[in-house]
């Protein structure tokens, strides 16, 4: 997997026998035990582990819910209520799953903004990063499909709006729409298809997560300084150092998650979804879940349907080009005084877009959405290339160790961590 030394030595006869046939334990050991981790990582670097936990929880609760759920238009709504009322701890499973989706997105947004702030997408981590964008896209598809399953008003009308959006895609749009609908409008066949796909996609996510972790372990982790590991003194072993930190952070995140499950289980959802789906009655405002609101605002900022669709998908896809749009030689925004301000402006614009996505598309809200949409794209297409060219970064520390202990200090003890490939992966591609 990665180039650094594999320190796993099988001890028992059985372990030796197995390792010589499939070096799985050695692989796990080099990836999660002896893997060198920059010693200066802050808690924003624990969200990778938190996201893996959330994916696991969503799959476990989802598999259990599927045992009691009935994906037909007539019965879906009541089968969800059957889970809430009659299944032992069904309310817990369902609230954990529904709020788990929101928590998954909370974690992924922190993970993405951490990546953008510290320039983690830059060489040599482009492939690692693009795999992350693919996971994000799959997550969005999975969450959308999942939200249709309770078959309430928002489920039904959300499915109607999104499938109509897809129909705007030139040439293949109608075919995609018919394939998803399984008929001439959103109905029972659609729900069956969505349920099937909702069960499929998380396993695809899990597959891409394996690639994501693999790529991470080839190129190594970025860190708050953005400079690579230069010697073993810059690193600590994944286990126990990163492991215990990740577990602690995961438990704190669970605490946050538990609050929503037990005390605000409906807050992140929408009241209209407790009204059974009714094709004859359109809700006053059709609003997606909070994590889609910025993209919904971008979609509605454009008066033209196809234009809106292009911008909405473009807003996600443009993330994948960040490694080549950013011209800065320095990764971390800690040393980029100008770019740092644009970064925070970008964060504010994303939050405001989210707020606008929940507002009706009229008057000043549309104008504000258009201004924010402009900045969203300008951040990638104008700010990233230009600031990198003109900005003078502040002085970088000599090493990761120096950033922790202060400059000029000599380290006497410790022979250091074996690093190798994780320290300096091949140069820019």
């Amino acid at each position: 997997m990665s180039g650094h030394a594999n320190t796993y030595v099988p001890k028992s006869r059985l372990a030796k026998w197995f390792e010589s046939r499939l070096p799985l334990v050695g692989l796990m050991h080099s990836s999660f035990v002896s893997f060198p981790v920059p010693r200066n990582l802050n808690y924003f670097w624990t969200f990778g582990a938190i996201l893996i936990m959330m994916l696991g929880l969503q799959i476990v609760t989802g598999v259990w819910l599927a045992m009691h759920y009935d994906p037909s238009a007539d019965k879906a709504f009541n089968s969800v209520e059957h889970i809430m009322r009659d299944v032992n701890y069904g309310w817990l499973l369902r609230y954990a799953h529904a709020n788990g989706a929101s928590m998954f997105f909370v974690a992924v947004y922190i993970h993405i903004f951490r990546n953008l702030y510290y320039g983690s997408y830059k060489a040599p981590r482009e492939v690692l990063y693009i795999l992350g964008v693919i996971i994000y896209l799959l997550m969005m598809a999975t969450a959308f499909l999942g939200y249709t399953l309770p078959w309430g008003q928002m489920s039904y009308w959300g499915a109607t709006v999104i499938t109509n959006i897809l129909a705007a895609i030139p040439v293949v749009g109608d075919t995609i729409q018919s394939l998803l609908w399984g008929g001439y409008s959103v109905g029972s066949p659609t729900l069956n298809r969505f349920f099937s796909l909702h069960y499929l996609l998380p396993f695809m996510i899990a597959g891409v997560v394996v690639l994501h972790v693999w790529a991470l372990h080839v190129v190594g982790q970025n860190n708050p300084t953005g400079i690579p590991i230069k010697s073993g003194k810059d690193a600590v072993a994944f286990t126990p150092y990163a492991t215990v930190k990740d577990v602690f952070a995961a438990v704190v995140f669970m605490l946050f998650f538990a609050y929503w499950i037990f005390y605000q289980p409906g807050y992140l959802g929408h009241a209209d979804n407790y009204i059974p789906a009714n094709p004859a009655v359109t809700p006053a405002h059709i609003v997606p879940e909070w994590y889609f609101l910025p993209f919904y605002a971008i979609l509605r900022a454009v008066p033209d349907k196809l234009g809106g669709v292009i911008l909405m998908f473009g807003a996600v896809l443009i993330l994948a080009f960040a490694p080549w749009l950013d011209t800065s030689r320095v990764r971390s925004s800690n040393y980029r005084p100008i770019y740092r301000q644009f970064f925070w402006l970008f964060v504010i614009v994303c939050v405001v877009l989210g707020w606008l996505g929940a507002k009706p598309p009229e008057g000043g809200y549309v104008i504000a959405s258009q201004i924010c949409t402009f900045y969203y794209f300008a951040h990638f297409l104008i700010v990233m290339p230009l600031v990198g060219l003109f900005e003078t970064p502040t002085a970088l520390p000599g090493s990761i160790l120096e950033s922790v202990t202060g400059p000029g200090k000599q380290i006497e003890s410790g022979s250091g961590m074996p690093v190798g490939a994780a320290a300096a992966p091949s140069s820019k591609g």
Partner: protein
Amino acid sequence: MTMTRALAASFLAALVSLAPAHAAEAPKPPREEWSFSGIFGKFDQAQLQRGFQVYREVCSSCHSMSLVRFRNLAEPGGPGFTAGQVKALAAEYKVKEVNDNGEEVERPARPADAWPSPFPNDKAAAAANGGKAPPDFSVLAKARTFERGFPLFVVDAMPFVGYSEQGVDYIHALLNGYEDAPAGMEVPAGTNYNKYYPGHLIAMAKPLSDGQVTYAKGENGEPVVPETVEQYSRDVAAFMSWTAEPHMEARKALGFRVILFLILLAGLLYYVKKKIWADVGGEVHGLQPELHKTG
């Protein structure tokens, strides 16, 4: 950060100036005190029983409650009727079933049966009620809400000051919101003016009036609570809160224990983490011994 701040400030100023476009809507339902709100909230059994009585004597002639079963009325965290009371109550109702000869017959309801609906189907319910079926009561308290606006909606999510009873407050307000239409407003036949209903014109006529339901008297023969619309609406709204969320008490109780456990676990892990990292924090490099030797 100055540039960011200036831009953020001008953004917010622009947004605030957009807001009044949506002012002239129905007034917000007032926030009521409920025994079941908050982290330690529990239903008031006597209130749920009174609310059930109001539902049974008034609302149930039009509104179904199809997801609630008779047995639920005796389950923990609910109105607290006894199994015997529920059995006797169920027997007062008739449900249809197909017998072994394939004939549709009526039999007395059992505790496992769902609450019988007042109309055979939605179309019959709509036909008898001016074209629109009265909504089912089962999850209605969770299906209704009103916008709180910024910044209240942020506060509503927080512990201790949080707010998740918008639906119940709306129902309570709606039942007290029948009044004369303002001068100049036309109220078409088949509709009624209601202060809190979105658009103000509601098909349901004022369903409750003072003294309409006779509550059980206290030991001294005096009424325990007033027999007024205000009290009836409060009781029936609380009852609907229970039908929408029958496991709420179990949820809040379990949540408290889960959160206590997680706080304890997080505290222990914090010190474990601190101890493990103690030898890394300074100048001494803290790797496992075997890692020093290899590589």
